[in-house]
């Protein structure tokens, strides 16, 4: 019942944010802060890895959308890594598949970014 956030620098001026756990109304502020800090430091090309996320709700989606909006103002982008069908379904039914790049592996998400 918690979230872990880990940020890694990747080649090509990119950053990977590894999330693991459950993203809900209680834990999403922590995710928001981590992504916010990263963007404040000038990181506008992000891969957010959701492979270890077991659950995401509307507040979690809101944090991802908020992050995407901020990096776009700087010509940046956010790609998501997600193969969990339950989580992908949430992006499907909300139409968010159309605004995020969603990839089955970190490799493809990174390639699509740069």
């Amino acid at each position, binding site marked *: 019942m918690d979230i872990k956030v880990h940020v890694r620098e990747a080649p090509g001026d990119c950053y990977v944010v590894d999330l693991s756990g459950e993203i*809900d*109304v*209680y834990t999403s502020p922590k995710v928001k802060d981590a992504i916010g800090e990263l963007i404040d430091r000038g990181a506008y090309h992000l891969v957010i890895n959701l492979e270890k996320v077991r*659950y995401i709700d509307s507040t979690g989606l809101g944090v991802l959308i908020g992050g995407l909006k901020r990096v776009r103002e700087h010509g940046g982008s956010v790609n998501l890594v997600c193969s969990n069908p339950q989580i992908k379904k949430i992006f499907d*039914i909300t*139409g968010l598949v159309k605004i995020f790049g969603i990839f089955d592996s970190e490799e493809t998400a990174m390639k699509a970014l740069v």
Partner: protein
Amino acid sequence: MNPAVEREPAREVVELRVPSTAEWVALIRLATAAVANRLKFSIEDIEDVKLAVAEACTAVIQHESHGEFIEVTCEVGADALHLRVHDAGRHVPRAETDRTMDYDEARVAGLGVFLIRTLMDEVTYDVHPELGTDLRMVKRLPGHPG
């Protein structure tokens, strides 16, 4: 407990009441999933129910400062799970009117209510200005169109 619930003796009722704060939503998810599991829902349907009930609680926590607790009532029927999320708040939900999602807003309004409506088979809001808001949701077992 609401009178309509008590009139049907065949249904088993589970009630959970937690403080209206973010840290308790995980417990509501856990308990609701355990109740849904007793109806032999698929794992996917159980995830839908978990998310819908959590969105309902999240809306209460985020928009309603008057209520001090959230009460979730689960009725286990033969072919459906009936959920009621009650808060004692006096704020009238905009949920009935404001259901469009607008990604251009800094805030994504209506995502929670949109998910609830998409994931559950029946959704109704009962607003009692004095007593608070009741959100009723029904999830049916596949093959039981209701």
